[in-house]
């Protein structure tokens, strides 16, 4: 290997090499951190909401007349929904997971201001909510019709029974098994306590960006409000066809209210994570562009270095270099430049991540990403150098005597 001479020769022509090394370092820093952030976003986007998303859609009903019959409308709507062929079940609820608006409150295990409350989303729905949503209970029993109380507008207080998600239970009673928290009291706000009758495996709050998104309470209430959300569960594969039919049927069945456009849970999820998806897309484009620009930079540098040394290449060939020797020379030279860039890049990558950890609360980067980034850019650098190196070894030995 001609390591020594290549290094000494490089040292006398630093500028281009240093610039490319810096570009590689910068590219690596951005690419690895971007990839890491994308991975983190993707992981967030893939968290299950706890409901049977692929068979669920929801739509709103808002009565606008002054003497709107909320009680009658609700009964009539539910009757209509539940009897529609293809609909498995339907419930009226105050909010929809990932829908970005809803209720939250504070839950605690004892009354009084001296106790820290744990934030939680508050779901209200009747005894068919668990089945309609497709929630899984890890402990306890489902609500019965007898558990359900009516909630009229402007009512205070909460029913005496509720369900909590596992995540909320873990906050309220750390280290307790789900089974062990059944029968415990929960204080919502400063109201009378309610008893935990079940623990839900998972039910995400309406806000996907909320750090406590897994913390939810479900209370057994029949919503006698003029404005409610209907969550509709369909047979598999029938949802998308049913959505416009259901909207139409509801709208014509009662003209005293406005039916909002139905939305599938899949679309709700998309809407909820639109920013994450957008950020991921932009970062992906940035990554691809940067890698492409870096590859072009490497191609440019090696091409320039070949063109500058045409006579030298001819001379080397005249002195006995094979084509492979010439190719190896340029690949090795480029490998050295790339490696210097990547070592700087590794340090920069970790440094940048440490900054995002402390300043933005991002997670700490896994060193496998750093290694992966180095490997990727090594390969990119090698591939980019291959073309110009190939042109170098096509330079004829006679160039040595034919050029001045």
């Amino acid at each position, binding site marked *: 290997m001609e390591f020594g001479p290549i290094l000494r*020769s490089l040292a006398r022509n630093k500028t281009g090499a240093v610039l490319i090394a810096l570009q590689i370092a910068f590219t690596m820093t951005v690419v690895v951190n971007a990839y890491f952030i994308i991975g983190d976003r993707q992981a967030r986007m893939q968290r299950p909401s706890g409901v049977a998303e692929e068979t669920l859609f929801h739509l709103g009903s808002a009565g606008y007349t002054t003497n709107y019959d909320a009680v009658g409308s609700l009964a009539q709507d539910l009757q209509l929904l539940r009897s529609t062929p293809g609909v498995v079940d339907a419930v009226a609820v105050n909010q929809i997971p990932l829908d970005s608006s809803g209720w939250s409150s504070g839950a605690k295990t004892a009354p009084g201001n001296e106790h820290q409350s744990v934030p939680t989303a508050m779901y209200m729905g009747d005894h068919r909510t668990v089945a309609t949503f497709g929630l899984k209970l890890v402990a306890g029993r489902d609500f019965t019709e007898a558990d359900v109380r009516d909630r009229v507008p402007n009512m205070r207080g909460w029913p005496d029974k509720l369900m909590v998600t596992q995540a909320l239970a873990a906050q309220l009673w750390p280290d307790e098994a789900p089974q062990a928290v059944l029968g415990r009291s929960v204080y919502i706000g400063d109201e009378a306590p309610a008893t935990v009758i079940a623990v839900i495996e998972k039910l995400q709050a309406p806000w996907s960006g909320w750090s406590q998104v897994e913390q939810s309470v479900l209370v057994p209430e029949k919503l006698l409000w003029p404005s409610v959300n209907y969550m509709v569960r369909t047979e598999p594969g029938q949802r998308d066809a049913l959505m416009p039919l259901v909207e139409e049927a509801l709208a014509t069945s009662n003209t005293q209210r406005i039916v909002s456009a139905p939305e599938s849970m899949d679309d709700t999820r998309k809407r909820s994570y639109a920013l994450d998806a957008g950020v991921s897309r932009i970062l992906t484009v940035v990554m691809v562009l940067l890698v492409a620009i870096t590859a072009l930079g490497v191609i440019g540098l090696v091409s320039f270095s070949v063109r500058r040394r045409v006579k*030298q290449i001819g001379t*080397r060939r005249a*002195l*006995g270099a094979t084509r*492979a020797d010439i190719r190896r020379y340029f690949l090795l030279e480029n490998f050295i430049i790339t490696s210097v860039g990547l070592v700087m890049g590794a340090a920069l990558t970790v440094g940048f991540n440490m900054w995002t950890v402390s300043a933005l609360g991002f997670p700490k980067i896994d060193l496998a990403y750093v290694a992966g980034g180095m490997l990727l850019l090594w390969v990119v650098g090698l591939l980019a150098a291959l073309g110009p190196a190939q042109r170098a070894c096509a330079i004829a030995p006679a160039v040595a005597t*034919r050029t*001045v």
Partner: protein
Amino acid sequence: MLEMRDVSKIYRTDAVQTHALRGVSLQVSQGEFVAVVGPSGSGKTTFLNIAGLLETFDGGRFLLDGNDTANLSDSARSKLRNEKIGFIFQGFNLIPDLNVFDNVDVPLRYRGFKAHERKQRIERVLELVGLHQRMKHLPAQLSGGQQQRVAIARALAGEPRFLLADEPTGNLDTQTALGVMQLLDEIHAGGATIVMVTHDDDLAQRAQRCVTMRDGAVQSDRARAA
């Protein structure tokens, strides 16, 4: 021994064909010092390039140490160049980014010699050309004559069977040229076989044998009067 029989070479470009060599026959034996003269364009460099395996030819035969060179692969030709041929160029062709030591080292590395052997050889040939004090200098820090001496050292370092020089003094003033010629004479006296292209008749006269080329053919081939 270097032996050409009726070698021809045609350069083809889109518009024209140039018959650079038209049936050159020539033998150079071990230990000879041959000067090749002739007007510009007569085919001297072409002859030297073919002799040094830098270029292929179109007709005839060329035997290097008795081996036919016609069907050698590119890498076999590289290997032969590396082992049997030492090139000296008009423009010195030192690698500007490498110091004197590293320049002389270039063919030795392709030869695959171990570091200590390379070092020994480099020091010996640089001593021979009188530049062992300048090993760390870059080419740009040397005069033309010194650069050509480094190039000669580089050509000699692998102990080739043939030294091929294309106008080695063409870029040097008369005084310096004489010094380089003297060096080549000494090297020849030491047993080397040298083929040197030159347009300087005075220098050509110093050689044992003088081949004159014209229009791609050997016009005359004379031994120097003893």
